[in-house]
């Protein structure tokens, strides 16, 4: 549905997006994942024809955005919830958008109803909370009943209720058969929302796969073992894959069944044998670790903090 081919955007000396190619499949939620500054928003703007690619191109259903007739009927987008004139009412904001794409005026009230803003439709948008602005932005995206929806960091800064609402909303849109492309820097959020992931870092494609595949590939599985006869067990395991912890060892590269069988075969008592799945954020940091735009030094600390408790 959305096809990016060799998409490149250069601002002066900075390569914001570097030879990026990916596909967004129709009828699914595809997550667009990357650390802050990875080029997600720039890519989204290029999809919508707001920024011109330095080279390469991106098409929606085979057409460049500028070639779409009444584009709001094909692509709805929420890039920034604050892109509203603060003194214009929510209804007036949607009314001019509807008019520009020859949509009936009653569609405005329909989408206000869908996002639950009917009661504040006449209020100036500048007085809206972030959550309300976000809903208005989604109403604008839905205005033309489009097949393709783009959302840039839709849950950023929202309270848990707002996050839950957006998450359910994405699922509903995909269930209706729409193509949803949603960016985020939080893998945990994407794991709950997206079935596919396009992962980028420093403007380059890191991977494109299903979410489960990405998570499985990313998180290195380890097994935690506690035993009063640790030394005997240790001598039976491949040396390089064992890490000492406070009260036991962490074994990587050998699954729990194998360790259990080894222990039983050698009469070793086990107090604990538990597979540890790495957290999603940890996996994400491992994969994008080399491609974070602004290193903080805190990053390694953060990585430690995210390690499973020993």
């Amino acid at each position, binding site marked *: 549905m959305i096809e990016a081919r060799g998409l490149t955007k250069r601002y002066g000396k900075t390569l914001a997006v570097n030879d990026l190619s990916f596909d967004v499949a129709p009828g699914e939620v595809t997550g667009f994942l990357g650390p802050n500054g990875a080029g997600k928003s720039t890519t989204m*703007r290029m999809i919508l024809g707001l920024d011109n690619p330095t080279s390469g191109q991106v098409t929606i259903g085979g057409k460049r955005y500028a070639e*779409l007739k009444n*584009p709001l009927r094909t692509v709805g987008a929420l890039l920034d919830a604050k*892109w*509203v004139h603060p003194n*214009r009412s929510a209804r*007036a904001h949607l009314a*001019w958008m509807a008019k*520009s*794409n020859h949509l009936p005026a009653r569609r405005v009230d329909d989408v206000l109803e869908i996002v639950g803003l009917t009661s504040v439709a006449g209020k100036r948008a500048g007085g809206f909370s972030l959550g309300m602005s976000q809903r208005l932005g989604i109403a604008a995206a839905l205005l033309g009943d489009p097949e393709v929806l783009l959302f840039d960091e839709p849950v950023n800064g929202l309270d848990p209720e707002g996050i839950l609402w957006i998450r359910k909303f994405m699922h509903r849109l995909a269930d209706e058969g729409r193509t949803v492309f949603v960016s985020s820097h939080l893998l945990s959020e994407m794991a709950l929302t997206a079935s596919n992931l396009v992962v980028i870092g420093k403007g380059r494609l890191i991977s494109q796969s299903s979410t489960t595949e990405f998570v499985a590939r990313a998180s290195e599985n380890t097994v935690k073992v506690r035993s009063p006869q640790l030394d005997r067990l240790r001598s039976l395991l491949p040396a390089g894959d064992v890490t000492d912890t406070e009260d036991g060892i962490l074994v990587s590269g050998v699954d729990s069944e194998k360790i259990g069988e080894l222990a039983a075969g050698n009469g070793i008592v086990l107090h604990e044998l538990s597979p540890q799945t790495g957290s999603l954020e940890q996996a994400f940091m491992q994969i994008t670790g080399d491609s974070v735009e602004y290193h903080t030094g805190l990053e390694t600390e953060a990585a430690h903090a995210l390690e499973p408790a020993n």
Partner: protein
Amino acid sequence: MTLLAVERMKLFTTRSPWWCALIALGVTIGFSALIVGNADNTGEFIATVASTQFGYSFGMAVIMVLAALAVTTEYRFGTIRTTFQAVPNRSAVLVAKATVVALMALVIGELSAFGSWGLANLLKPTADLALNSSADWINVAGVGVVYALAAVIAVAVGILLRHSAGAIALLLIYALAVEDLIRLIPGIGDDIHEWLPFNVANKFLTGDGLSNMGRASDAGARTSTAVLSQGWSLAYFAAVAVALLAIAVGTARKRDA
């Protein structure tokens, strides 16, 4: 037509155009009333048709603020991106915006010009303020046309600069001060001044001073130093406005929104 309707909706659903329109009317009519009200009943400084339009340049300044804001607030609040997303044809959008703002300026210009003239008639019932020559008519009815073209210039500058403060400062300083300051350049100053757009626009309105009973200035409205005829002056001013808009639209098409 759709785009004109869209831009009209955008313009009239915020408050600043209404305020600017009211201020433009108030300033123009107020200044003209002060000039005419304080003119002599007989003798040298009597009220004329030209002096009823004394305040037009102040109203024009407000119109240019309105017109520049119509674009720069779109950049300020990001709605220009929403607009280009809804209508990717940027030239069409921006030309429609310039047209709508120009039409509003035309209406405000006519209201303020005839309002000033009407008020002057009330203040000085004995003065000869009848519109009985084409020079008189152009001096009053032409104000709306000049406002409309000034609005196009302001929209163009707004598109180019994208920042409210910068665009407004540039427009006001240029229109109210720079053209006159250029006259002070020794030797060539006056020759350059003859071709500066707002001076030429003033020539279109005041011509050779017929609407001011042939006098150069004193009683209010100042005649222009431009050498073009009234008709060519209008064409020149319009050409400047259209050229600036074309440059602005060309820039906006290439630029990242």
